[in-house]
């Protein structure tokens, strides 16, 4: 066994070195794949050596950002953290992260591991690494050709937790599908959430997913919701309702380049400002802060560390090109895309937009989810947009979608080639440029954009002051 482990680590590290020196990818999945092939028990052996604990982050959206924020908070406290920062979140990516941190003899000298884990990979990784805590962000409809229907994904996580229920759950109180997991928890979960704020829709219309009680299938009532099914729900039949969050952000304010809110924790009120936009990032931040309490780090300290947070690639990633703001954002499912569109819609001034849709395995081969995205908002407010360049392997499908959303045909352009599409977007006259791309389109767009535009690295110093 030990020999096998050493061979696996050597082979994995060699592949890592090779892929880096050849410049082929970032070496975030392949080393783990090789090592796991040689030693299937590798994850368990390496994970055992983590001194304080392992925190797994899963759910549909926000995994990368939440786990990066949490790893940042732990590192800022002087803790050594193993983490799969680049979003390689299958078992192979998790194994690569451990390999990278391990010595050639397979020794790990780290206090914490923060692991982002894909929902489909969760059962295996969970059983191998035996995490101390699990953060579940949300459950949205995502890549039906890969995961199957949403119920199946939720059941998969639930079953793993049932098999081994010792983990401390950190759950999004606002998502009934996530909060419903409490039924299989042995310990009282730690809940986080967002309180009602001025951008919140007051009524329950528009909640499409998960409108039914996870326990008794009755239609849920909503006092308010933020987006998708996230909000204050209650079941008129069995009494299931949004739990009171231990950590809650209120007075949310979403700017294009920042988001802020007041975090309430044990009667303390703390001002949180993130140097990246989007209400969803406020969710990610409170999730990370809630998880950090499990490691004994106070939200007050965590909030301080998050002021300098750097967005991961393609998560409201900011660039400047000839004085204009260029925002690059990953889109991968209707819930996330709708968040992206809400940000576009709120941006002041004229906008140039590029939407790049690929249908490779990692993107989901079925692009019919584009019809579950509410592009109608672009059609209704199309006066604020100069053009929409549709690109990627399914750029034509995107163009059709925009046409039926009411975007005038003369504003819809198809440019299959990603680099030429970026050039055309950057060559526009709008005050702001938005680039939205699916997973496999994001990387080539980012690579090309890096050469053409300057990335904005935020400390926190150029943030608007907290009023």
């Amino acid at each position, binding site marked *: 066994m030990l020999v096998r482990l050493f061979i696996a680590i050597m082979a994995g590290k060699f592949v890592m070195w090779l892929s880096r020196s050849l410049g082929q990818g970032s070496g975030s999945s392949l080393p783990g794949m090789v090592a796991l092939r040689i030693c299937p028990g590798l994850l368990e052996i390496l994970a055992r050596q983590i001194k304080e604990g392992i925190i797994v982050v899963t759910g549909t959206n926000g995994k990368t950002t939440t786990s990066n924020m949490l790893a940042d908070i732990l590192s800022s406290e002087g803790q050594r953290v193993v983490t799969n920062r680049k979003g390689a979140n299958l078992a192979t990516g998790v194994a690569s992260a451990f390999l990278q941190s391990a010595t050639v003899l397979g020794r790990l000298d780290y206090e914490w591991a923060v692991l982002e884990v894909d929902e489909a990979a969760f059962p295996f990784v969970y059983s191998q690494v035996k995490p101390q805590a699990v953060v579940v962000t949300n459950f949205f409809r995502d890549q039906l050709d890969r995961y199957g229907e949403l119920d199946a994904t939720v059941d998969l996580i639930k079953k793993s937790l049932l098999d081994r229920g010792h983990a401390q759950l950190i759950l999004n109180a606002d998502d009934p599908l996530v909060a419903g997991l409490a039924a299989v928890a042995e310990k009282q979960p730690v809940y986080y959430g967002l309180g009602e704020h001025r951008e919140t829709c007051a009524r329950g219309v528009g909640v*499409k997913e998960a*409108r039914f009680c996870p326990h008794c299938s009755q239609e849920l009532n909503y006092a308010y919701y933020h987006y998708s099914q996230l909000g204050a729900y209650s079941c008129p039949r069995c009494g299931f309702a949004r739990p009171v969050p231990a950590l809650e952000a209120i007075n949310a304010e979403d700017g294009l380049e920042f988001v802020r809110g007041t975090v309430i924790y044990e009667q303390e009120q703390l001002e949180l400002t993130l140097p990246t936009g989007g209400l969803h990032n406020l969710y990610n931040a409170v999730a990370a802060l809630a998880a950090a309490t499990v490691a004994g780090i106070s939200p007050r300290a965590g909030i301080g560390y998050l002021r300098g947070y750097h967005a991961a690639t393609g998560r409201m990633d900011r660039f400047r090109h000839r004085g204009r703001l260029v925002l690059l954002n990953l889109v991968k499912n209707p819930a996330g895309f709708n968040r992206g569109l809400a940000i576009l819609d709120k941006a002041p001034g004229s906008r140039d937009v590029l939407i790049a849709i690929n249908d490779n395995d990692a993107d989901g081969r*079925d692009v*019919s989810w*584009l*019809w579950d995205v509410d592009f109608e908002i672009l059609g209704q407010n199309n006066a604020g947009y100069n053009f929409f360049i549709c690109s990627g392997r399914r750029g034509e*499908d995107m163009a059709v979608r925009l046409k039926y959303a009411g975007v005038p045909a003369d504003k*819809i352009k198809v440019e299959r080639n990603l680099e030429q599409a970026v050039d055309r977007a950057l060559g526009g006259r709008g005050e702001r440029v938005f680039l939205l791309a699916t997973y496999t389109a994001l990387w080539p767009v980012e690579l090309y954009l890096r050469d053409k535009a300057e990335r904005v690295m935020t400390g926190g110093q150029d943030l608007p002051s907290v009023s």
Partner: protein
Amino acid sequence: MVKIYHLYPDLLDLYGDRGNVMALVKRCEWRNLPVQVKEIRIGDIVDFSGADIVFMGGGSDREQNLLAEDLGQRLENLRQAIEGGLVMLAICGGYQLLGSYYLAADGAKVTGLGLLDFYTEAGPDRLIGNVGVEIELNGKKVLCSGFENHSGRTFLGRVQPLGRVLAGHGNNGQDGLEGARYRNVFCSYLHGPLLPKNPALADYLLSLALGREEGWKGLGSLDDTLENTANEVMLKRIMNKR
């Protein structure tokens, strides 16, 4: 006024199938034809004789069971409307529901509405991927594309198929047939959604619905360059693969 009844949009809303209704609505609006969508939910009072086009999409198993019972109570009314020439489009789960039965993997037999003569059996795996189909509309052969994702295998009795599979699996991956057609009822496994990228089929449904009125003079033409390009790009890709 073109009256579209969208059956259970709150329950049957997987795979962007609502795009089919959007396509019908937009293609009416672009021609200045008045159009109205009525969303039918469980328990609503409904008379199908007042509808021009009925649309039903697919949903998860749990949701499909909920509505099968509800639809069963309206069965006679729907059957009469169909015999009278009502235009209907049913996709995936909605398609399966119109047949005689669905034989689940555990051997349980779920009775269908029995409106069309076909049955469905659960398969060992899901049939997933892009599909190209040749459909005959008014004697003209039209190539359509879409995406299928189903574990049920459907076998037709005394009904016509919607078309012939050029690439992909279709009804069962065996007989080369896709979908079903009986009078003006069209069934298909194709998501995508089906109608926006296949405007000839969308317009065919509209002309069948409008043609039931006396003195109707036909649909005006639209610029379908974007739609046809998207369809051709996909057809080219999947046909070359074979």
